[in-house]
């Protein structure tokens, strides 16, 4: 996705990142399980923060489902609130 290095300055104007497709929509998954940490871990940063839509490319409704799932997982110590 990243533009070639040499083109960087000139590419500024037309730098429109490729539209990402929501991974949950692609999989036709409706409910997100808060116990499925292997899946949820893909959407949190190294610090334990939830990645924004801008980065994850999720659609709004799945992003909302994702946040509740991550927050539930944090309550029962399946995911961290903060790292370090």
């Amino acid at each position, binding site marked *: 996705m990243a533009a070639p290095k040499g083109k960087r300055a000139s590419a500024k104007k037309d730098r429109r990142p490729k539209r990402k497709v929501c991974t949950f929509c692609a999989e036709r998954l409706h*409910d997100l399980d808060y116990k499925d940490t292997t899946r949820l871990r893909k959407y949190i940063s190294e610090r334990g923060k939830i990645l924004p839509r801008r980065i994850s490319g999720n659609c709004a409704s799945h992003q909302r489902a994702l946040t509740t799932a991550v927050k539930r997982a*944090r309550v029962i*110590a399946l995911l961290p609130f903060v790292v370090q």
Partner: protein
Amino acid sequence: MPATTTIIDYEVTYVLRPSLEETEVDEKANAIAEGVKTRGGEVVGELEKAGKRRLAYEIDDVREGYYVTMHFKSGAEEQRELERLLRLNESVLRHIIIRKTD
């Protein structure tokens, strides 16, 4: 009009202390399930024991716990009672009761 209780689908997950033996885990989990049944709730399906898992953060100086998930149907009153029991239960490190949507 008589008071009718709406039956709701719930899912509860709790974490038991790692110092327990496997048999004790089964005992505690069954006791909790029994608690729901005696109060008029209906346990749906089997208890899902995820076994000993690493905690994402330390709780009471421990870093692991036994995860158990149970599905049940009951009114809100029974759910609140379960919540109370889980809070009082010393073996339960963390618990979460969610309302299932589907």
